[in-house]
């Protein structure tokens, strides 16, 4: 399983925030003080969509943690991905949309709402590839 934190902003130990691969277009960070300019800094990466196209990909999903229901779905997805790995059934990715209130300069609730209202529409949740061979491994 691939575990990588694709941050919306980079959290530096001195509490600075810079453009990261999933920074939304126009989003202001300390390294994009005028907002992320897609002409100069490229478009955000849609990792799940990209990796779902690769040969060998078996379980590729995107989840979010903006409320208890979605947190539970995320837990199930991580469990499923690990099962796929234990069965050596191919490549798995669980892409998780997560919040960072401190470095977004928001309260916890505001950051949850930002996830739901801004991030989820840009990075749609869902199953991007579930190979036939792994379907039996996944608990609904």
């Amino acid at each position, binding site marked *: 399983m691939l575990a990588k934190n694709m941050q919306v902003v*980079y959290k*530096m*130990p*001195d509490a*600075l925030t*810079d*453009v990261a*691969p999933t920074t939304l277009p126009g989003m202001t960070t*300390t*390294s*994009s*003080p*005028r907002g992320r300019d897609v002409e*100069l*800094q*490229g478009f955000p990466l849609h990792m799940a969509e990209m990796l779902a196209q690769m040969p060998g990909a078996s379980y590729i999903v995107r989840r979010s943690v903006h409320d208890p229901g979605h947190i539970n779905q995320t837990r199930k997805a991580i469990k499923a991905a690990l099962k796929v790995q234990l069965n050596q059934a191919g490549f798995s990715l669980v892409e998780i949309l997560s919040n960072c209130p401190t470095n977004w300069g928001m309260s916890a609730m505001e950051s949850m709402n930002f996830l739901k209202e801004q991030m989820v529409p840009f990075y749609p949740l869902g199953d991007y590839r579930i190979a036939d061979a792994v379907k039996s491994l996944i608990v609904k």
Partner: protein
Amino acid sequence: MTRELWKGNEAIAESALRAGLEAYFGYPITPQTELLEYLARKMPEMKRVFIQAESEVAAINMVYGAAAGGARVMSSSSSPGVSLMQEGLSYIAASEVPVVLVDIMRGGPGLGNIAPTQADYFQLTKGGGHGDYHPIVLAPATVQEAADLTYEAFDLAEKYRCIVIVAADGNIGQMMEPAELPAPRQIDKRDRGWELTGAVGRERRIITSLYMQPEDLEQVNVRLQGKQKQIEQNEVRYQEYLLDDAEYAVIAFGTAARVALTAVKWARAKGIRVGLFRPISLFPFPYARVAELSKKVRALLVVEMNAGQMLEDVRLAARDALPISFFGKMGGTVPFPDDVLPEIEKMVG
């Protein structure tokens, strides 16, 4: 010019702008990030090119491209990021385009930490990437010197068409000190005969590092080595403190030299005739001057924020002429003068 309070990283960034920096490509990494962020704010206002690349690998290759186009260009990073850049730096060295790189060194090996060290000495001064080359490496000990050396680095890079690395540790990047920054200047944009500007009405030029015929690549290496000899003759920089009547000497660079100087002064107050030798150019290393010094004093103490890297160059220069002791702090711990004074006393015996 006015004396102002500057953070090291921002002083380097502003100094680069005043030196005529036209294009910057980088990627955030602590403890260097304020440098990139300062340029992110300033360069678009000045209609100059600032790009946060997707990685250090991308950044150094953008630098390579812009330098090949004749732009005054730089990047900056910190130790793990500079490791990622080494392939590109080797290509740049072979292609002979002028590039300035700032390394705000942090703890290693590996991801290490964000505390100041001098543990990139080997990587920076001995080449770093593959093949036979050395960048010019300049090591500031103050914010003022970091600004001055950055300003000058562009001239050196263009004079020799080589890489110049400003090697400061995280301490110099992060601390604030009064400094008088150099004046803004216009850069000479006349054609220098090698840059790629579009071959309209002239012979085409090629910038490459690929030479499939060994004899051709041998000639490139002979030229690079010749240039390196010139650099070794012309660009050695160092500073000496209290060495005129010294019987003992401490050798240190960057932040370690500032700490060592305090200890040297304390030792002087105790009647020990000791001085400090501070290399500013780590490549070219001041071998000749250290060799002279090793004939003049009774013993040397090398102080570094690493496990003993410059120490090897000091030994090469001194050639067993005298006892050489070493005191190093690793992992981002910084020596105190209280640590260095007993080492001086031990050297004296």
